[in-house]
């Protein structure tokens, strides 16, 4: 063998690779595999779809629109953009127990938080607590980088500037008395956001870090005074701020505001009448947006989502129909008409 190789140096190697004879698995598909396969996959999809739909149907959702475009809406007065510090109250009732834990969202529609130049208009260095960015914010923050007095804005940029600083207070009306429902604002943001992505500068007291900076133009209060009730919930790690800074995927979105997990309401909202006090301070009519609040409980799949279940059902059914078509085609080929 060795001798032979010496005699013919140009002889190609006789290996499985060079001779294209690599061992291989060649699945031989046939109608007997393909059609039942389609049926099985279709059935599986239908199964998943049904499960999803049932789960979704079991989730209770209460949506309340308070944009105030309609005359009869309690917030009609407040929807005028010139109004300042307007408060409106929304009355609603629950017929049966709204099972807990209840999640309290606020919703906006037609609000393009995913607009590109809006999205990049933020300074992650600043938000990470890096003081060097307090003096010279990232240039993508324009036009919310410096205020009129050339003071750097902290936090700079469009996202932070447009924060929808809402205050909602929920009351249950028990015997004509308003009983405030405790709202839990802890842990509504992502763990990574709260603990790593966003950080306050290591300066105490916090406000010193913001010396010679300006608050965002739309903000009523500077960042270090976002939550007067809880000093730990201020600066960049304020939960509401964190939720807002996590951009929504699509122009109609919800954001988690609070959870109702405490006291008498740990098991949910009992049936009865409620009133929601809204500090209406974010005009949306200019971009034909709508505002709403949503109460919902959650399952293993999160909030209510009918689309997913229906889509699974549709695709599953389609697969089954397809397999029937295939069966017909198969029969046509197997038993040609001339017989």
């Amino acid at each position, binding site marked *: 063998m060795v001798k032979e190789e010496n005699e013919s140096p140009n002889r190609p190697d006789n290996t499985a690779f*060079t001779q294209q004879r690599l061992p291989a698995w060649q699945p031989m598909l046939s109608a007997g595999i393909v059609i039942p396969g389609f049926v099985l996959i279709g059935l599986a999809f239908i199964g998943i779809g049904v499960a999803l739909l049932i789960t979704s149907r079991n989730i209770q959702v209460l949506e309340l629109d308070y944009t105030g475009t309609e005359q009869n809406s309690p917030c009609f007065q407040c929807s005028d953009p010139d109004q300042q510090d307007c408060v409106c109250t929304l009355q609603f009732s629950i017929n049966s127990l709204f099972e807990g834990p209840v999640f309290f969202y606020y919703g906006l529609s037609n609000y393009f938080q995913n607009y590109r130049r809006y*999205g990049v208009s933020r300074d992650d260095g600043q938000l990470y607590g890096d003081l060097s960015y307090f003096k010279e914010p990232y240039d993508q923050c324009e036009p919310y980088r410096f205020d009129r007095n050339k003071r750097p804005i902290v936090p700079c940029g469009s996202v932070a500037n447009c924060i929808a600083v809402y205050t909602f207070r929920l009351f249950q009306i028990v015997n004509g008395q308003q009983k405030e429902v405790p709202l839990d604002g802890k842990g509504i943001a992502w763990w990574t956001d709260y603990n790593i992505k966003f950080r306050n500068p290591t300066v105490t007291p916090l406000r010193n870090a913001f010396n010679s900076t300006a608050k965002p133009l739309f903000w009523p209060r500077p960042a270090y005074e976002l939550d007067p009730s809880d000093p730990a919930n201020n600066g960049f790690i304020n939960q509401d701020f964190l939720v807002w800074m996590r951009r929504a995927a699509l122009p109609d979105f919800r954001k988690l505001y609070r959870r109702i997990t405490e006291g008498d309401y740990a098991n949910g909202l009992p049936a009865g009448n409620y009133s929601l006090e809204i500090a209406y301070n974010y005009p949306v009519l200019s971009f034909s947006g709508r505002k709403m609040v949503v109460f919902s409980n959650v399952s293993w799949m999160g909030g209510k989502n009918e689309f997913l279940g229906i889509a699974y059902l549709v695709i599953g059914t389609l697969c089954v129909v397809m397999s029937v078509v295939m069966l017909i085609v198969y029969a046509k080929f197997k038993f040609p008409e001339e017989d």
Partner: protein
Amino acid sequence: MLNRAVHAVHVHKQLVLLFIMDKDSAESGLTWQVRANQRCYHKRQQKKSFLGLRWGRCSDNQVRSYKYSVLTFLPMTLFEQFQRAANLYFLFMMALQCVPIISSIQWYISIIPLLLILSVRGVKDLINDMGRRRSDAEVNSRPCDVLVSQSFTTLHWKDLCVGDIVRIHKDQTIPADVVLLCSSEPHSLSYVETADIDGETNLKSRQALAATHDRLTSEPSECLLANFDGVVFCEEPNDGMYAFRGQLHWRGERFLLDIEHLLLRGTVLRNTLMAYGLVIYTGADTKILRNCGKIRAKRTRLEKTLNRVVIAIMVFLLLAVLLLAIGCAVFTSRVMIHKGFLSALVINGDPVYTGFLVYWSYFMLLSPAVPIMLYVTFEMIHTFHSKFINWDLEIYWSQTDCPAQARNTSLCDELGQVEYLLSDKTGTLTQNRLLFRQCCIAGEIYGDSSARAEDIEPMDLTWNPFSCGGLYMWAPALVERLRVQQCPTVRRFFTALTVCHTVMAQWKDDAPVYQAASPDEEALVGAARELGWVFLSRTRDDMVISEMGVTRHYKLLALLDFTSHRRRMSVLVREPEGALKLYCKGADIVILERLQRDCPHLESTEQALELFSKACLRTLCIAVRSVSETSWEQWSRTLARAAAMPTFDRNALLEKLHDEMEQNLQLLGVTAIEDRLQEGVPETISLLKQAGIKVWVLTGDKKETAVNIGYACKLLDPDTRLLEWQELRQILQSPDPGGHFHKIKHTELWAVEKDKAGVQTAVVLTGPELTDFDQRPEWGAKFMSLARQCQTVLCCRVTPGQKADIVTLVRKHTSSITLSIGDGANDVNMIKTAHVGVGLTGVEGGQAVQSADFSLSRFRFLQRLLLVHGRWSYQRISLFLRYFLFKTCSFALVHLWFGIFNGYSAQSLYETWFIAFYTTFYTSVQIFFVAIFEKDVSAESSLRWPELYKCGQRQELSGPLVFTSLLYALYASLVLFFIPCGVYYNTAVDYQTMAVTVSMAAVFTANIEIVLLTRHWTKFNIGAMCVSLLLYFICSRITHSKFLFQSAPADYLFYGASDEAFTDPVVWLAALLTAWTAVLPSMTFQALDVIRTVHDKHKVHSMSHQPVELRSQCKRKTSLCHSSFTINQGPV
């Protein structure tokens, strides 16, 4: 002292003379002046170049085929690469990304693939160029003897200069175009072999001027040559290979020079001990280098489709981007002009300007849809496919240790789409080895051609000291007759064979080696040698022959040479005994009409002729005539007179004279030579015909030979009707060629076969007839539509140029892929012209292989090359192409739909790193392995069912299907966006989670699609699949990790997104649903295909494969193939 003064005067005189001569030479167009032995003068005139400026007159003798130098490499390679539209596009893209206001994705997203592409191409070019430099250096450093100050010194070729006197040894290649001054042979004759130039293996003689011969060879040559001070005035360098005009001015006399005095660069000196010459043209000025046109870069049809697709994608993108930009402007003006949260972001408060900027942003964002990586991967796959051809043991020829070779690595897929195979005959279909198989002497047939040549038991020829084998004939009776020496006809027959030819004998190891202008002659003289009639040597007018051991001298009086018109040759010799004899051999028709009356054995000889031609043997009649002294004297006087006449009159007279002499011949016998087919040729041709490939034969040989070979190799069926020029002309002239052709098919000529449906027709053309096509360009299309209905087309007597013209004709009037196959330098032109050129490594020069795209050792390897390698390559590459377009477009076009939901703001739906990795890591390796290993059917099956090949000819996989896959990609992009969009609409899910969902769905889609495409799962496929999927999850975790975020917060914004998403069941459910829905059409289509083909496969399997019957040519009409061959001038 005195000597020097005399010399000076002499030089002065000569300069004055030169000046005068210069003037009138210039008037006659001879402006190129070469002064012998004046190195310094010519050195000054040499071309020099600096920074692109060139001056000087003549080039030096250096070959420079390399393209780059150290300085020019980078700019030139970049310039070349940016001529490709996609590369330029991406360069533009990169420039755009540096503008922060429009940069929608980071700059590294496109610089990574671009750099990769540029460096891969650059390195490849560099390696090729190094190879060229190496081969240049090899040529440039070849030795040659140059006369430098009174003695010959060995210099390199590159140091040679115009005006040098060179000495060329036997078997040396001539280094430049040289005027022959003298040689070691009598009359300063020298012989050159021009195989490397025109493919003709016969020797050509060149002769020096009588003046230089006489005066330069009388004394020790070096001294004389050193004093040679002639000046040559000749044409400027040109590309005419067969013409040269010049004058030698020497010692006050003028001598005319023509091509007979010129030794061309690249030819080889043979049979001449030494030749001395004056260098006229060097390097780039030489005729051969002027002639070698630039090699055209061949681009495959698939690559053209690919370019068209890329351009289509770009146009589509431009339109889509325009719509998006308009959308953005409208959105901006409608929503943002009002007071709102976004209004501050309108740049300069101008919606049109914002729209303009968004236009470029989208341009960038959608750029991944232009598959830039495709080109690089394409090249890598092609390289592998050509490697597989090089590695294949089935097409490795062990006898010469020669594997197949894909010299052009980018044409493999064309091999799977060939529709026209244009083949040379000599050396390609046949072995170019002619065997003396039979003869008929005095009506008696010797030898048997029914057995194969190899099976014939060799005769005992030990009695003959000159025998060296190579006679495949069993005829002990003949040997007996020869040895007994009783039969005079047999003796005369063999004397004729040994005397009547133009072969030259060379002595090697005490045995004569024959060098002949045509292989026929070589076979005849060789056969005579084996049987004891040995041609020993020849001079100008003397031939030495050993007849059964007795050496005899024949005085050669006249040689009546062969022409294609005369179809015979004769020699007039004076035998040692003093008698005058004319020996003649030629085509049967010509000889038979010149025989004396009542020639004996005529009838039996004619029968033998018929028998031989039925067995596809080339026949030649041999005849003799005694010439009386008186008629010879008279004849030779007229001949001498003719020599003094002007050319035209002379030729006419010569013809008459020759005709006069070749009369009243006495028939001696007939020789039968077998033109051996290469093994496996008929089987291969029949297989290729079944595969729908039209095989045409283009040959320099005569019509009869070509037709005969056509029958022998199953190209023509026994009952095929041959359509010749007269009929073809009528058909082409008629207004409706199709109808006319149909009519002709059913005329009374066809009455016999009328009942036979689908009778076959073949066209036979000759070179001179082809020239009519030049004058009537409208015939081309008619001819091609006719030829498409015919079985084959045989073109005979065509020149290399015409071979290429036929290829061009086919290329022009059909959209089919043509493949030329040949082995000689005469095929180079057609090999270069065809889409795919295949060269056979054979005996001839190797020129064909040099310019071919693929080289094979045997014609029969073509079946594996086309039906297996070509088919696989085509299948794999079109699969790859379609998949690649699908995966990039479906992935990138998602942004079109996302734009509607984000205010047309060019927001990316993917993380930037994902965009960078998607094409490179997550989806490329799998398809790469599919494109290398995929086999839909095994090699054995592809050969067994050649019909499978037709799919490539119809471009089933690469034509409209490519656009279908683009539509499919569009659909997939819709699904990829809208299902997650539906799931996440009006929910609390953030942008990053949605981005991860869509990217996950995109990766799943791409991988499921691969699973659907792969039929042949090797361990590499499975491994690549798993690794890529794993890589997606690992890379996502890495780019979304805390470490990277902390090092650069602005670049790794997705920190935490995948942790959240990968643990969310909704994300998984949404991604799976999306991926499944995206591949559903492909899945359904494939499933239906499976169901349908179960039926078809049944049909394919039940089809029986009939073996090719080899010897059926005897059935055919003998009148058609009554062969009449004579000494042909070798392949033209």
